């Protein structure tokens, strides 16, 4: 009995994936756990492991093909499997040159070029992927602009005649990857096209600063208890159930507590509407080789510090390996973000808000500061710098300051079992 291997859906917003590599040739034996193919969305890459033993009978797509999710990628079965079934599937091979066969293909898959009156399918050019969602091609101008702006046209729904993608459809579209590096030793510089993630970051950071009213308050928090707690955790290393709770985890935990008292900070701004979240969906900035990523820990306020710490560590690892669920790295997934540059020794910075969120907390290095210890005694106390950037469209200074002050208080009084 042949099995159709379908392209997994990697997050609700993903409709297409690109096959980056086929590991197995047609006719080869595969075993459960063998890698069948690698694929990627515009944000992350994945590998598909076989869930059964058998022979790879047929690839229905090739490397580089853009495959709608839940579409059959390949067929695994026994060599003796029913020829007819095989043929039917083979006829579905993407890009089949036989228009008559294409005519039989379900519309849900081949929206492109099914009607001869709608302008036909878009011929795949040297730079362009072929199928477009729901449309019948793209205008030359839109194609040119998309290439220049690095926009992935496969994600765009065309509003032109017959569903053609036209220029106005590119507004607000996302940026795609084009990785061609040209280097010429004779030149004084080399031009490297931005990577996919770089383009996303570039766009969202730029848009953030263009489209909101950001300002940053800086405040120091007494970090003595924080350091104590961290020491205590370290001491427990080697014990059973040991969780390596970091300073950042602790700060985040303090933030989560403070957010409970300041629901307006735990929010997003959508046009003229404030979206206040019942739970804290905390975004944590993670530095990866591919660039900055901000995975979101859903309902962080319902987690224990240990759970939170573990989850943070897992997500960070997923981000670094490129295997993260694209849905949880969308800015819309978070209600607040923490970005920690403390371990780099940064003493003060102005983090940029992950729109549509309304605020972000920058966590700085712990530095000793002179303090009045009481009774005319002065000494040095470790302080951790906190930099809160907030969107003044959504929040006022007093409100933001009260929240920041409370974060500082939570840190000052942090306790760990």
């Amino acid at each position: 009995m042949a099995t159709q291997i379908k392209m997994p859906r990697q997050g609700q917003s993903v409709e297409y994936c690109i096959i980056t590599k086929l590991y197995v040739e047609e006719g080869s034996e595969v075993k459960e756990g063998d890698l069948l193919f690698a694929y990627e969305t515009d944000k992350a890459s994945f590998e598909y492991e076989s869930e059964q033993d058998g022979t790879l009978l047929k690839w229905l797509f090739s490397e580089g093909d853009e495959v709608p999710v839940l579409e059959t990628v390949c067929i695994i079965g026994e060599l003796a499997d029913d020829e007819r079934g095989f043929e039917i599937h083979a006829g579905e091979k993407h890009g089949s040159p036989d228009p008559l066969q294409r005519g039989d293909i379900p519309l849900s898959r081949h929206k492109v070029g099914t009607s001869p009156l709608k302008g036909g399918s878009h011929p795949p050019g040297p730079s362009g992927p072929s199928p477009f969602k729901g449309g019948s091609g793209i205008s030359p101008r839109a194609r040119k602009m998309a290439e220049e702006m690095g926009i992935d046209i496969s994600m765009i729904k065309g509003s032109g005649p017959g569903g053609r993608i036209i220029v106005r459809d590119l507004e607000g579209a996302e940026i795609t990857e084009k990785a061609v590096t040209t280097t010429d030793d004779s030149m004084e510089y080399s031009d490297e096209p931005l990577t996919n993630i770089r383009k996303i970051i570039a766009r969202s950071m730029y848009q953030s600063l263009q489209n909101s009213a950001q300002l940053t308050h800086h405040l120091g928090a007494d970090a003595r208890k924080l350091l104590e707690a961290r020491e205590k955790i370290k001491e427990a290393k080697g014990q059973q159930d040991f969780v390596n709770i970091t300073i950042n985890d602790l700060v985040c935990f303090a933030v989560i507590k403070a957010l409970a008292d300041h629901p307006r900070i735990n929010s997003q701004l959508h046009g003229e509407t404030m979206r206040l979240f019942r739970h804290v969906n905390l975004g944590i900035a993670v530095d990866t080789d591919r660039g900055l990523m901000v995975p979101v820990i859903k309902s962080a306020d319902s987690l224990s510090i240990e759970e939170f710490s573990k989850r943070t560590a897992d997500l960070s690892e997923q981000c670094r390996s490129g295997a993260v669920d694209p849905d949880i790295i969308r800015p819309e997934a978070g209600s607040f973000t923490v970005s920690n540059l403390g371990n780099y020794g940064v003493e003060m910075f102005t983090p940029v808000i992950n729109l549509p969120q309304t605020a972000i907390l920058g966590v700085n290095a712990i530095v000793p500061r002179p303090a009045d210890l009481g009774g005319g005694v002065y000494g040095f106390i470790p302080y951790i710098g906190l930099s809160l950037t907030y969107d003044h469209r959504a929040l006022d200074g007093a409100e933001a300051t009260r929240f920041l002050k409370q974060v500082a208080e939570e840190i000052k009084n942090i306790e760990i079992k």
Partner: protein
Amino acid sequence: MPKNQFIDPDKIRRKGEIIFQPLPVNQYDKSLSEERKNFSDDALVGIYRDMMLIREFESMLNLIKTTGEYRGIAYNHPGPAHLSIGQEAAAVGMAYNLDADDYIFGSHRSHGEILAKGLSAIHRSDDKSLEAIMRSYFNGSIYDVVAKNHEGSIKGLATKFLLYGTLAEIFARVTGFNKGLGGSMHAFFTPFGVYPNNAIVGGSGDISVGAALYKKVNRKKGIVVANIGDASMACGPVWEGISFATMDQFVELWEGDMKGGLPLIINIMNNHYGMGGQTSGETMGYGIAARIGAGVNRDQMHAERIDGMNPLAVIDAFNRKIKILEKKRGPVLLDTVTYRYSGHSPSDASSYRSKEEMEAWQKHDCIYNYRRDLIDNKITDEDSLRLIDAEVNDLVFETFKLATDDKISPRMDADKDPDIIGKVMFSDISVDAMEIGDPEVLIPLKDNPRVQQIARKERYAFDKEGKPYSKMKQYQLRDGIFEAVIDRFYKDPTLVAFGEENRDWGGAFAVYRGLTEALPYHRLFNSPISEGAIVGVAVGYAMSGGRVIPEIMYCDFLGRSGDEVFNQLPKWQAMSGNVLKMPVVLRVSVGSKYGAQHSQDWTSIVAHIPGLKVLFPATPYDAKGLMNAALQGTDPVVFFESQRIYDTGEQFHKGGVPQGYYEIPIGEPDIKRSGSDITVLSIGATLYRVVEAADILQERYNISTEIIDARSLVPFNYEPVLESVRKTGRIMITGDASERGSFMNDMARNITEMAFDYLDAPAVVVGSRNWITPAYELEDYFFPQPDWIIDAIHTSILPLEGHTVKNDFSNKTKIERAKRGI
């Protein structure tokens, strides 16, 4: 419609009869000995020599075509050779009395006439002027070929020059008289008075009338002879030309020294066949072609049949007829009987005529009989004639060797310059007046009632508050054309204008109101309703050296002047190797409200023809500026006007239409309104519908339209349009021509090709429907309307939010209509 000519019913209804005078048929009966009183012996021998030269020249071509060689030298001439072996006496007799100031026009079978006329002009010119002509023509490039190794007289050299220039032209050599661009059927050499020979049968029938008009109006020496075949008497343009040439007004209405007929001889070279069709007895009903003259005018065109087999009979007839022309009693019709031994062309097997007939005519051979007469009358002897024969043969052979030598006589180097032919299509020069002189006018310009009326008008359509002035108060499009035309009449003494209802009426659409008061008859007159001749006469007038504005009252009548507009007007500048100029501004009025045969926009058809400049202004400012530019040039311009907007004021050019002279460069489109979202390129009067559409697009859909008025179709500068498309990313082309095969489609194709990467949608064309122009009440279903423009944008370019279409521009409908041929 002159008021001083009273159409008296008492006279008109009176009983009577038309009495024709007898037409002479072959009345010449002098013997050679009698003619010795009139000709020197040398002159009589010279006639023999000229006929022999023509015969040897034509025989050489015949041998090349039929055997592939001449006197042992092989040559392949793939082009045409319509030979006139047998017709030499008719050609030499016709030309004998003509000098370089007399013009001849011919047909596809005119080698003999070219040589005869050239030889006569050489004979009658002095050495100095011959040398000047030869040395200056194409910077002496033909002269250089023949002058090398020449020994003997200048006239002898000029004969070699004539033979070589003609043969090199036949062989398409750049050293030919027309740089090889004319060829066998169209070779000519104007300095000797040899004007274009025409490969369209009867083509010279109206063009020659224009040349005669030029001679008359500009008081030039000389007469004009149209050598056309007997079969061409069936052609419309010949009849129209004859009608034009015999108009009563020359005698009845033209005044002073202009009173009197045209100096024109329509000379039917009657060889009895039109290809294989026998004109007398089969394809025509005249019996004797001279009969045609009888019905044309009171003078019966002084028509006469003459014996073209005898050169002296032809000379005698031309002598008599030239005297008639000198008395201003032309035109004249001659039926010159002759016979060609060769077929229509070398591929003609003469299946339509009997051997007996050909042998009988050979017994009447003009050269054989004339030669015998010369000897019988002891004017010369056999030995002397043999010497002449040998000399003639050598002359032709030497010419043949030179003309077939690729080094001496190369072809145009189109490898080196692929545009070399393109460069002779237009003359692209700027000339105030075709001749220096005082233009004949009747009153000072400032006293002209129309000029005074226009002076009271508002030259910009809107007042300071932006409110439009009343139509009567506005300076209108027709005023713009008038100002440019009358200005040129006061600048260029050669300028004439004619067409239907041009005088008195002031043009059917009042463009010329005021011109009648300003100009004598010979500069502005009504033509017969002969659209072919209106254009053909203009072609002849212009190629002779004058500037002319013919008018076609409705664009729909262009079909009537098809050959003149498609084959004559556009081609002669290039076919002459850019020797001729063609300063013709053909005004064509595009109708409206008058249905299927009076409302069509045929700009696309005209734009298709290489060699015409095509303009279609839509505003008074553009109309005046473009008419000025058209009249300043020497290229043929078809100047389209729209009856829908003759009364439109200037709505775009801030500051209004300048009072003084200015030109708008031909070929430059104009941005009438800037915009950012879509470009609409409009041809002609559709501009105003585009403006309406643009207003709606802005108000309802917040779409900003850039409106470009093409103004010119040919030439056309695409740059401003491409620049606009690079900005807006979208373009529609619209105009009143039926969409299928239109120039709008041509523009769309070019723009798509040149701005492909900038287009957000295909270039979309909205033209008129591919069916008849209906009655005025139904015109909105034929011509593009504002809602069509918006619907087509919505359907094919940019869906408009909330828009519902009234008109179906879907592919489905387009395919369906194409299937049905509509």
